[in-house]
């Protein structure tokens, strides 16, 4: 009895952790340090080999961290009494010019501090042939070390950022699936919402000069409009008893068509730069704003489903609609809520996407409904309704993202990726079935 329930609650998380472990192993490779730590390493080896006051050239590229590396090196070298003859930052051409001017000034060179990239430049490797007058400078580079590409913080943040839109939509989808329904319209609503947001900003908020308030209003208006589409779907489903699959399939077509009509088949980009704050900014504790928003929404949704009356009603409607109705649950209103919520979350997803890409286009969100449903299912929510947890969905979203990311890092081609994703979804459902069988076997009476 205990064991299967444990599996149900923590199985998906366990799978995700195993997957992360696997990805770390396959992407384990040589890394070079950068930034100030790299500078310290170079300084140490320089001091050991070249004595007190060497004449140094610093050659760095344009990678992130290179500027820090160069600045720290220059400062500390000067402080220790060395002479920094030049700091070449940028292309190989810049390094060549710097070397030429040093050679022209007639001085010799004791050391060149390179990053792992610049040390492979021809101008550095062939220095003895090209500039014999400089003497025999030794090349210093930061030490390399081994670390999984997957576990690099940029990569992890990258996953989190990519996942934000899907994860936000998946909240609404989980609610709908728990009530025993399905919402196929979310992908189209993402596109519609992105187009609406961009169009509102362009047409009513002043385009590129839009103020914060104007942008906020545009976003809210787009989300509310998506919500009203959800209300229409919900009404069809509850009051006219049309199957959710059909209603939301129709809404998927309508939403997508409307998005193309509004955008007139083009991408709307007359948006101020500050609009990307939501999608690309990272103000709080180093996490991207979209990821913070996503985490907050998941926490709220978890509380809603686990602790409130409404959450209990959502589960009850999915578990046994008739029993719920006869227990006084306002079934229709509960279902209506589910579809409106799903549309609102899809609308919010569209806004985040528009912010990430700084434009609105009707091509956004294609196939998202399927990815989202897959994520919900992988997270352990049963498509027959009445079962499922928000945190499971979050795990499912990450599971799929981690698999995709791992395949990208190991250069698996995109066609193969599709096959693998399909297998993952099948595997997840199979896992769920086996678990259910174990549960019924171990505790039927």
């Amino acid at each position, binding site marked *: *009895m205990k064991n299967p329930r444990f599996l149900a609650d923590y199985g998906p998380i366990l799978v995700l952790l195993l997957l992360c472990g696997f990805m770390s192993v396959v992407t384990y490779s040589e890394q070079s340090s950068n930034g100030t730590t790299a500078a310290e390493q170079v300084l140490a080896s320089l001091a050991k080999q070249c004595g007190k006051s060497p004449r140094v050239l610093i050659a760095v590229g344009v990678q992130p961290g290179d500027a820090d590396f160069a600045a720290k090196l220059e400062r500390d070298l000067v402080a220790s009494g060395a002479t920094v003859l030049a700091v070449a930052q940028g292309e190989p051409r810049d390094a060549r010019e710097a070397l030429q001017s040093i050679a022209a000034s007639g001085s010799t060179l004791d050391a060149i501090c390179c990053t792992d990239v610049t040390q492979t430049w021809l101008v550095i490797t062939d220095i003895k042939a090209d500039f014999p007058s400089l003497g025999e400078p030794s090349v210093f580079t930061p030490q390399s070390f081994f670390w999984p590409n997957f576990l690099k913080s940029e990569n992890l943040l990258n996953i989190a950022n990519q996942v934000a839109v899907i994860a936000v939509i998946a909240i609404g989808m989980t609610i709908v699936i728990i009530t025993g329904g399905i919402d196929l319209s979310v992908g189209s609503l993402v596109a519609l919402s992105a187009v609406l947001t961009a169009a509102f900003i362009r047409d009513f908020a002043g385009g590129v000069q839009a103020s914060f308030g104007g942008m906020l209003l545009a976003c809210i208006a787009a989300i509310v409009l998506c919500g009203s589409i959800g209300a229409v779907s919900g009404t069809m489903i509850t009051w006219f008893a049309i199957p959710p699959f059909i209603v939301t399939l129709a809404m998927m077509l309508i939403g997508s068509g409307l998005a193309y009509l509004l955008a007139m088949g083009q991408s709307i980009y007359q948006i101020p730069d500050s609009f990307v704050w939501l999608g690309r900014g990272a103000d709080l504790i180093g996490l991207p704003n979209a990821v913070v928003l996503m985490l907050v929404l998941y926490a709220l949704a978890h509380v809603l489903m686990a602790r409130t009356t409404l959450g209990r009603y959502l589960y*009850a409607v999915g578990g046994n609609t*008739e029993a*719920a109705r006869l*227990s006084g*649950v306002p079934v229709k209103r509960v279902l209506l809520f589910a579809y409106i919520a799903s549309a609102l979350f899809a609308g919010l997803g569209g806004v985040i996407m528009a912010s990430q890409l700084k434009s609105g286009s009707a091509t956004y969100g294609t196939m998202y409904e399927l990815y989202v449903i897959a994520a919900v299912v992988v997270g352990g929510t049963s498509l027959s309704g009445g079962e499922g947890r928000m945190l499971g969905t979050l795990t499912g979203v990450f599971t799929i993202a981690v698999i995709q990311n791992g395949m990208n890092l190991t250069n698996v081609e995109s066609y193969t990726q599709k096959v693998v994703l399909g297998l993952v979804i099948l595997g997840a459902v199979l896992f769920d079935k086996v678990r259910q069988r174990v549960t019924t076997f171990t505790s*039927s009476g």
Partner: protein
Amino acid sequence: MSNCSPLLEMRGVVKSFPGVRALRGVSLRLQAGEVLALLGENGAGKSTLIKILGGAQRAEAGSIAINGREAAFHSPQESRRGGVAVIYQEFNLVPGLTAVENIFLGQELTRWGFVARKQERRLAADLFERLGVEIDLDAPCRQLSTAQQQLVEIAKALAFDARIIVMDEPSAALTSHEVDRLFEIIRDLKSRGVGVLYISHRLDEVFAIADRVTVLRDGCNTGEQIIEKITRNQIIGWMVGRELKDEFPQRQSKIGAPKLEVSGLRRGRAVRDVSFTVRCGEILALTGLVGAGRTETVRLIFGADQRQAGEIRIDGNVLSIRSPCDAISAGIGLLTEDRKLQGLALGHSIRDNFGLPNLTWLSRCGFVQLCRERDSLSNYVKKLQIKLQNQEQLAVHLSGGNQQKVVLAKWLARNCDVLLFDEPTRGIDVGAKYEIYLLLNELAAAGKALVMISSELPEVLGMADRIIVMHEGRVTGEIADARHATQEQIMALAHA
């Protein structure tokens, strides 16, 4: 050979589920041309035993022999090939297919790979004629009445020449007239050498039809006797492990002012101009044949279906009930007849099920107060003696009687003034029935107005203060003094 060995012999059958040893070495013999009644309280192991016989579950130990030959049933198909037909309480018919299609489902007659429809039709018609009934061969099964569906199941068993027919609670949904008809068919089957294993909670029927009785309790055989040599109380003793003195507890009724008044209730052909009154502290029995419109009537009162006409008053105030929500807030509760489909979300925990109608008072600002919910539930668990492992156990894992108690608990916690009970003791064992009777009496003593629908006349006579009989959607009679009514009196009104 076949003369000396029994048609069916099960020996030392063992089956356990975690925490429960459902069968601990049960044995059973059935002779050809015999009706053996298999009795026992719910949870005694009857269902498990017949599921093993039907190939739906596998025994851990023990043997099954048919005509003295060892058989192992690993699937329903193998069991069927062995000549065993099990008619479960929930029928295995495809609602959208016709009677003929259902009869031959999985055993279609074919010619050149195509279904031989004419031949199937003719055979089906023969079977129904042999059973002495008329059934529309072309109507989808969902349009047939429960009794007709059961006949389709029997015909299905005969179509593949079953030698052993197991009937699980066949009379549960039948009217007494239909039960008589069923008995004639069983006697006919007997005369053809078919062995019938008959499972029922209704002892009257057992005495009417069975040749021999075998009783299970807690997964063991507790007694077996031919019917002529046994009394009712002996059987009950074997079932519950003690002798029940009275089937119905005694009660002093204190009847007060009218509580619920219903007048001119109407919906289609099912409910036609029904009016009655229930008073505080009164148990009103609503009886009649199945299909008389009793369930439909209480569903209209509860707002589960929309009424076309009629007025509902509580304490003299007219209520506009349009949904179960309205009814519940007006203080009306309904225990549905089908607890699995309408009473419980089986895949959810006991606590979730219990809380569902009570969240309005168990929550604050939309948040469920889990502590209050747990406390309240554990009160009722104690009071109703619900046997559960913990509150998070799934409802599906409880026995029928305990499921019914959970449904009761959820309505008792709601503290309704008017309670509508639709077949409150259906499919529940004798011991649990008695507890539910006690509870009904207690509720009445507390001044609640109770309406009880029941098809079991002894229960109606034993429990009710007043009886209303319905027939074809109309009230055909009222018996004000239930204590002195007779079954014949009720049946006369029910057939009016």
